[in-house]
């Protein structure tokens, strides 16, 4: 097999890197979304009582 700039091996590696990147980005989005929902459900006073009196 001829040596090419772009090898099958590079294609598979790239698919792994993009896949992992997307999975991590999705995980960050999930944790952020979950935080927003949880805080909204219990209310800002309960989520951060020390902030309740601040303007």
């Amino acid at each position, binding site marked *: *097999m001829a*040596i090419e700039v772009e*090898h*099958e*091996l590079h*294609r*598979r*590696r790239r*698919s*792994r890197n*993009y*896949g*992992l990147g997307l999975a991590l980005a999705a995980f960050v989005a*999930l944790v952020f*979304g*979950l935080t927003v*929902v*949880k805080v909204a*459900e219990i209310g800002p006073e309960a989520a951060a009582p020390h902030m309740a009196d601040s303007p």
Partner: protein
Amino acid sequence: MSDLGLIERQDEAGFGDYVQLLKPRVMSLVVFTAAVGLLVAPVHVHPFVAFVCILFIALGGGASGALNMWYEADIDAVMRRTRGRPIPAGRVEGGEALGLGLALSGISVVMLGLAANWFAAALLALTIFFYAVVYTMWLKRATPQNIVIGGAAGAFPPMIGWACATGGVSVESILMFALIFMWTPPHFWALALFMKDDYSKAGVPMLTVTHGRQATRRHILAYSLLLVPVALALALTPIGGPVYLAAAIVLNMRLLRGAAGLARRTEAEAEADGYAAEKSFFGFSLSYLFLLFGALLADAALRGLVPGWGW
């Protein structure tokens, strides 16, 4: 030249190979039954939280699939059906699958605990342990009842979904568990009947190998008979309703007819028509489970839309 040999390796894993380790087809059943368990529960769950719960239940199921593939690579390499899996095909190292399985197990259990509650998380951990250790490492190679007890692992998801919403266990969730638990043996024994020599070659003590094929046919009928009262009992609980009752009656009659037909058939008859009845029973048993859980979902939706629906 030896350096070039390394570069020309064709079997490096792509992202899809790691997805294959999570057994996406099994995952679809886990997603569906867990979603039904969560949605039919009488407690409202925020849609985003419900989505996250189902996602991590599925990921936990996937993690146990990866652990299963790590441990079973030797069996998978001999069976025609599983020879192309990432580890026997040489694209993923066994150790990578073990690492992925353990990491995803931890992530999914912790995230389910944070998203829902720690009771549901503990159930998910138990499910992973049951499938990866009790079934894969211990029972599968030791007893022809492997399918029966291993079926418990597949039966947990609706119970976990229910626990995410309610934080506990109840008659309804136990019956949903029992439904999948009793359904698993006939489903897989039908598969074993037409997947002939594969299991014996791999040294897995399937019932067809240890007790013969006629005994397996009788077992399918016996477990189908035990499955019917469980499926009908679910109709009488608060999550049952007219749609589920009608579906349960029709589907269970077909199940019994199919199972009785299999029990009467001789091996010569089955050989003659290429295991047509066995294959159709296997296919039917898949839709049986999907339709029953779908009917539970339909009744839950109708309860929300039509006042006084159900009982």
